């Protein structure tokens, strides 16, 4: 099974729908342990990304990822802009030249994205950041590869997001809350869950 240009565009469109739909929820998650703008910022950035993708012609999937990355970089702001922007930029570079993305190149692309997020944010697993969703998801996809099931991808991402609730933040603004950050889902992990739930939806339609 292979993801084509229009599947990647669809990925961003579905993610955008979910983010627009849950914008207030994401902002609400950001209020107790952040600065209360994650939903607003992600909604602005993803809207820009899908608008840009709908207007351009693409030769290969990497170009979709690059354009989405640039839109997120320039429109999201805050810490999430550079983190998501870096993720899709690294993924774009990792799949450059490919006409379609199969399971193995999806693993390569998402691994590169994860590495990009870690380097940009100087973050590791367990610090209550989006690494805590991207990490487990990449692990899951790597272990399954050709047997990748959409339902499992969604549930892995959801469980990973929910596990951030019990973590204590040591990176980002939430780290100032120390123990008080426990008991809240990390907003960046929640938006990352929507990213992977949407990827699963695209994947499911292909199988």
């Amino acid at each position, binding site marked *: 099974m292979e993801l084509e240009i229009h599947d990647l565009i669809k990925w961003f469109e579905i993610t955008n729908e979910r983010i627009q739909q849950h914008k207030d929820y994401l902002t609400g998650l950001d209020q107790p342990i952040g*600065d209360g*703008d994650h939903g607003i910022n992600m909604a602005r950035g993803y809207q820009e990304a899908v608008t840009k993708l709908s207007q351009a012609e693409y030769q290969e999937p990497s170009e979709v990822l690059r354009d989405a990355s640039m839109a997120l970089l320039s429109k999201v*702001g805050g810490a999430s802009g*550079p983190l998501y*922007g870096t993720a899709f930029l690294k993924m774009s570079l990792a799949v450059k030249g490919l006409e379609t993305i199969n399971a193995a190149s999806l693993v390569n692309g998402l691994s590169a994205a994860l590495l990009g997020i870690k380097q940009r944010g100087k973050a590791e697993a367990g610090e209550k950041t989006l690494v805590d969703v991207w990490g487990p998801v990449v692990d899951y996809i790597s272990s399954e590869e050709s047997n990748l099931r959409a339902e499992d991808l969604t549930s892995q991402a959801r469980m990973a997001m929910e596990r951030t609730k019990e973590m204590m933040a040591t990176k980002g*603004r939430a780290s*100032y809350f120390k123990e008080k950050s426990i008991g809240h889902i990390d907003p960046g992990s929640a938006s990352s869950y929507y990213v992977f739930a949407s990827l699963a939806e695209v994947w499911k339609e292909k199988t």
Partner: protein
Amino acid sequence: MKKIINDPNQVVQDMVDGLIAANPDSLKQVPNTFVVARADAPVAGKVALVSGGGSGHEPAHAGYIGKGMLDAAVCGEVFTSPTPDQVLEGIKAVDSGNGVLLVIKNYTGDVLNFEMAAELAEAEGIQVEKVIVNDDVAVEDSSFTTGRRGIAGTVFVHKIAGAKADSGAKLEAVKAVANKVVTNVRSMGIALTPCTVPAAGKPSFTLEDHEMEIGMGIHGEPGIDRTSIASADEIATTLTEKVLEDFDFSGEVAVLVNGLGATPEMELYIMNKKLHEILSERGIKIYRTYVGEYMTSLEMAGCSVSLLKLDDELKELLDAESTAPAFRS
């Protein structure tokens, strides 16, 4: 929400337009950005200074653009870091070929966006260095947090590094003196009321009538303690002692008593009176005192105290000429 605004989503645009209109000879807007720069940028032969961050802290940072301070300020959305493409435009607008120093307040968003911009600028052949300001002693400086926040002490970095750049110093030397200021400056603040981000429409937290938050950040981030409101003398004592505990200020200092937006100058002077008494009791000599609004938090009531330990080099640079609208010397 009661504010003198038009569309809450256009406040940064409207503010930048008004700022340029007020200073048509000294400031310009870089087209299609929220970057404000010196009208005469790039200044030939000079290292350029670029700062910025979320809006809502006026006069920081665009008010500090002028000869002897910043060359450009990148204005983000309210309390939101500007994006890398905007910072890159700021860097390109002021680089004269002698390199650019980025002055960044220590917030994850600001650091990530400015770092990405620095990488993009380097890819275009521009020499970029950065300094990260973390003067707020209210939060613990440990590897288990993002580290201390950058607040009002940042203004001293703009002033002193700006003067150094104006003297014709090279990028490395400008960066070194900026880091010297960061090493020698400490701040701490209190808040009496919250503030409202225009696009959000309601305050991000609540403080009861009789409460104050000690050590609160300039975006309403939590402090170290919430107590009953105290007298000016008590507040000045709490803040000053916390700052003095953190660093050895014996010798000479510059003092900055900063209002957060809704605190009258009268109250800042009342604070300053006690602050001077405390420093004089400790035998710390005050070289310069600045009282007013330098780094605000929209309409938050409250204040911060910053101390900068001085040596001869810092004194000379602090007193050097500045034509910035919000810091003339």
